[in-house]
């Protein structure tokens, strides 16, 4: 007649009440999870529906046209796609060597205590809001570019079409530099984790064979973690592509395609930020929504790749089996 026995007897009143609570809790939390799915589905659906006027009118030509004229309702995305890709690639060219180098230092060389302090500082840098980078860039980086860096580049490398034209300060180059600073914290922290998953034995074996510290790092440890490092690069790329505020503030907002990195340009995110609230016609707005969808698709593909690579390395390292 003891209560414990009653509590475990299947089908008794108290057990069914308890499991009833479980069912309810499961149902309630599941409702929230389903709400998340619903938001994502609605996001994709609404972007698709609201970009359809532009899709119907311009078709695939939207992606290859360079015309952007709100007055005549003619819209093409190429200058913005070009600007987004150029600034992001520039950012990676700067951020990848710096970020991977710093990650190697943090995981292989620095004493654990120093490494954890520096990693903490890098994570704080990642937390700095984008608009603050933009504020800083407008008042420090842009004058620096205009007064010193761009004239110097023209003087030394001016024979290349990449470094020609007047130095305005606001340019693809300025946007690339500020994007690099915003990207490398992500590259550092993810690369560092990938490097830390490399087994100790790999390092010791290389050193025992007479390799120097650098040879062991560069020829053994880094190749072992290469997929994770590549993942961090893709993660950084996705961030750079979608970054809005800092770029909008220094890119110069010029919807043209220029070979020179010193010229002002435009990115997808920047044109949406500048023009969406003022878009006067439905076609204009629809074209901006379609730009948003292009950006959305670009970033999810690249983020997806990054995640696959990172999961693969952190699960089992990326050495050939």
């Amino acid at each position, binding site marked *: 007649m003891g209560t414990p026995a009653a509590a475990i007897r299947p089908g008794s009143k108290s057990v069914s009440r308890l499991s009833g609570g479980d069912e309810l809790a499961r149902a309630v939390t599941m409702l929230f999870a389903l709400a998340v799915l619903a938001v994502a589905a609605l996001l994709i659906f609404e972007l698709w529906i609201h970009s359809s006027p532009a899709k119907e009118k311009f078709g695939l030509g939207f992606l290859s046209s360079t015309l952007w004229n709100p007055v005549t309702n003619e819209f093409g995305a190429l200058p913005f796609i070009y600007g987004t890709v150029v600034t992001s690639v520039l950012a990676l060219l700067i951020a990848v060597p710096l970020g991977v180098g710093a990650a190697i230092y943090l995981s292989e060389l620095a004493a654990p205590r120093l490494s954890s302090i520096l990693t903490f500082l890098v994570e704080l840098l990642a937390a700095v809001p984008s608009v603050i980078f933009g504020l800083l860039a407008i008042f420090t980086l842009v004058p620096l570019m205009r007064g010193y860096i761009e004239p110097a580049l023209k003087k030394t490398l001016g024979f290349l079409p990449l470094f020609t034209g007047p130095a305005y300060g606001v340019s693809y180059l300025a946007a690339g530099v500020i994007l690099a600073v915003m990207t490398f914290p992500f590259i550092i922290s993810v690369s560092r984790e990938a490097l830390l998953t490399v087994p100790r034995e790999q390092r010791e074996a290389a050193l025992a064979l007479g390799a120097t510290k650098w040879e062991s790092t560069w020829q053994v440890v880094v190749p072992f973690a290469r997929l994770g490092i590549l993942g961090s690069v893709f993660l950084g790329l996705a961030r750079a592509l979608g970054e*809005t505020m800092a770029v909008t503030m220094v890119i110069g907002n010029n919807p043209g395609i220029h070979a020179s990195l010193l010229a002002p340009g435009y990115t997808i995110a920047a044109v949406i930020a500048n023009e969406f609230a003022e878009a006067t016609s439905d076609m204009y707005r629809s074209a901006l*929504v379609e730009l948003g969808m292009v950006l959305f698709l670009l970033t999810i593909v690249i983020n997806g790749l990054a995640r696959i690579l990172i999961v693969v390395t952190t699960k089992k390292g990326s050495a050939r089996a």
Partner: protein
Amino acid sequence: MSSTFRNRRRNAVNNIMLTLTGVCAFITVSMLFVVLAYLVYNGGKSLNVAFFTKLPLPTGEVGGGMANAIVGSFEIILFASLIGLPIGFFTGIYLSEFGGKTLPFLVRYICDLLNGVPSIVIGIFVWIVVVAKVHHYSAYAGAIALSIMLIPITARGTEQFLQEVPRAMREGSLALGASNWRTIASVIVPAARKGILTGMILGVARISGETAPLLFTSLNNQFWSAGISEPTASLPVMIYNFATSPYDDYHRQAWAAGLVLLALVLIANITARMIVSRGVSLPK
């Protein structure tokens, strides 16, 4: 002979490359101090009592402050947290504790996808589903946009910290006859509370600096907004507008606002990391 030369070369390469990695680390970390130094210097000399108590003045006039933007930011972040934190929290519990196979996988994937969506695209989405439907910009539209960014961060953070609760605690509670949800509510969630709280603070800190989702949801306002269904000023949007304007006094105020925003975000980040004891890894 040639082998000593070779070894000397290898050693030189070793020293140079190792030093270079140190230089990389130094450059990257020093960027944080560059940011801090500029904001403390320029923001510090622009900050005054009026900044916290006065409204922005019309262009060209010197003085004024951003009291409305400070209050507006807190209002928007508060509402975003009220929406985003519970949804994220319960989704996290579902993912960690009640999941079967297919649905949690899908939800996890969608959370990561939402987390990677550029914030400007979230702004477009909320403009379509909220602003365009009610025909006006509002603080709640801004809060909804920020909450959409907060949900996946909170959900994945909560899930991760719940997963780190030792199995033995779970089994102990179940063995004592507690039901599943009872175990979750009185054993697992309390055990993971520090981590969950940390994740939430970091999430709120992240959205509080976001500008792009607010540009065409809560818009901006030079005055006090009359309620949550009015366009509302916020610090990030104010910084953007003032920094890109041609007026010196607006630039001064943008620096001041930048310093206040950065201080809030960094303090939140440092506090969050102090709550968790050392050794707890944070969700990415």
